[in-house]
């Protein structure tokens, strides 16, 4: 099966004044389409850094990164804006919605950035996704009128609105209580199953790991145990 993404020898070093902090020390990773993969690891182990590189928000200091058959390691930030918009959906820990937009406007936003999509098409697709994440009766609400779980549903819908090849979620349940986390996880698993959306996300939460097809562990900037055996939930 053709890999959706392939990382080889990815290193990342941050320079803080005179000191250098190495966040990633040679990561190899391949993800196939349709996979539901989690990356676990303690705080500071490099999860966010890895996801930022995969999301084309950040560039590796060394190594190669091929996304959907395209080497994106050397592209500059603005050229990657298009790649981000078309191929990747982001779900952030802190939701990060546009506070002055209502639910529909937030969901349609990444799609509306595209010159080839009409406002009506974007709106229609946003409605479908609001339905899919169970927010059809909240479409006119602003983020500050929603609960944390509802906000994260908006963020999930927004990440999916462009039908991206890959959805990245950096600790998407960290700001939610365990019951709501469960629901959000169910939602993502459902979308993975029904729509075949490829998810890659990071978490602290051991219960989340149990549901993943594949759980990777990162420590001190290195993958440990390469790829853990797929968890029992893989057959969903």
């Amino acid at each position: 099966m053709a890999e959706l993404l392939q990382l080889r020898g990815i290193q990342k070093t941050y320079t803080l004044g005179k000191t250098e902090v190495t966040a990633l020390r040679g990561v190899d990773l391949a993800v196939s389409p349709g996979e539901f993969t989690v990356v676990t690891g303690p705080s500071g182990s490099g999860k966010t850094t890895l996801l930022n590189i995969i999301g084309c928000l950040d560039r590796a200091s060394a190594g190669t990164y091929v996304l959907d058959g395209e080497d994106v390691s050397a592209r500059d930030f603005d050229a990657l804006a298009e790649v981000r918009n078309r191929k990747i959906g982001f779900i952030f820990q802190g939701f990060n919605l546009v506070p002055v937009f209502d639910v529909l406007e937030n969901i349609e936003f990444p799609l509306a950035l595209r010159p080839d999509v009409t406002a009506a098409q974007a709106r229609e697709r946003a409605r479908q996704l609001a339905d899919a994440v169970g927010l059809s009766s909240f479409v006119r609400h602003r983020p500050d009128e929603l609960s944390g779980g509802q906000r994260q549903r908006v963020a999930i819908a927004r990440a999916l609105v462009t039908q991206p090849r890959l959805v990245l979620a950096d600790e998407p349940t960290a700001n939610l209580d365990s019951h709501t986390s469960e629901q959000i996880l169910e939602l993502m698993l459902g979308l993975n199953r029904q729509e075949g959306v490829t998810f890659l996300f990071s978490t602290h939460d051991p219960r989340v790991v149990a549901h993943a097809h594949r759980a990777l562990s990162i420590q001190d900037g290195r993958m440990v145990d390469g790829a853990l055996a797929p968890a029992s939930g893989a057959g969903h």
Partner: protein
Amino acid sequence: MKRLLSMALRNVGRNRRRSLLTGLTVFFGVMVIVNARGLMWGLQSMLIEDTVEARVGALQVHRRGYVDSADAAPLELSLPADEPFRQRLLAIPNVAGASGRLVINGQASNGRAQTLFVGRGVDLAHELETCPRSAVTVKAGGSMLQPADADAALLGSALAGAFGVGVGGSVALQATSPGGRVNSLDVQVKGLTESAFPFENQRVAVLPLSTAQGLVGMAGRVTEYAVRVHELSRLEETADALRAALGPDVEVHTWRDLQAFLRDVIYRQNTLLGGVSLLLFVVVLTGIINTMSMSVFERTREIGMLLALGVRRRAILQLFLLEGVLIGLAGGLMGALAGRLLVGGVAALGISFNISGIAAVTVLRPQVTPLFVAAAVAVAVSGSVLASLWPAWRASRLDPVQALRS
């Protein structure tokens, strides 16, 4: 683009108090400038009218070389005091009136004391057509000279005071003809004049033209023509037309050339206003820079998110510029409207200046041109762009990774 505008509009509404405060500084800035300009123009046009309508005329015509030695009142540089010459002036477009004058230097005395005076002999048949307000500068108790008057005078109030002479009294005037003959004449004081210009008060005596001509033996001659125009805004072109029509023996000056003092006062007022405007502009700009910087700082994560979703850096720049411009535009337009209304209101009421003893009241009416009001708004808006430029640029250069971590 529509989405960007709608986003900017809503972002401006987000921190309502701060946007309002910033908009208010623009509002007050524009309003103050419009009103200060209005007052200044009102004052200046009052001064100009006083000069043009009461004394100098809009333009003056002399024999060439006269104005350079005007202090000596050179009588040999004279012009004909006849109707054909006056008609040549009146034939020029925009000329509304013309009146001949003979300006002489001499001594005035009451038998005990004497002093130098400047006599302005005026053609009473045409003087009021040319300087319609010369009558109103006569203080209460006196009266304007009439065409039938001879051997009569209006004295500057300080000049009259120096002799202790009042309306109805008489003074002896003495002057020398171009040929060197000294003549003397008793004139009756018919009124006292008062002017904002000290020289007028202290030195000038207004005489019937024939009286002045008799004093210096210059029947049929004048040293200047005062000219009135329909439109002051076309003054220079009218002056040029007169020069072309009258030829090289004659010189034509505008009130600006003749009243360097007033011209300089106006220039200084305008410079001061310019300085104050600039200061105000800087203060308002600083406010906008401050507001936009705070806004960028507070929204760092949001900017990171927008960049992550694929928004171009240029669009981020435009977003923040737009927000600054919206504040500037709203504040500027409302300030212009309020300023214009205030100027109109004060002009309708009028600010009265009752210069002591003068029958007529001089009223200051602030005035602004639509062009100036529009320019004030344009400066406010372009100032907002300028002030937002740096914060907006910083926002657009944020590193999304750092911004999202903040």
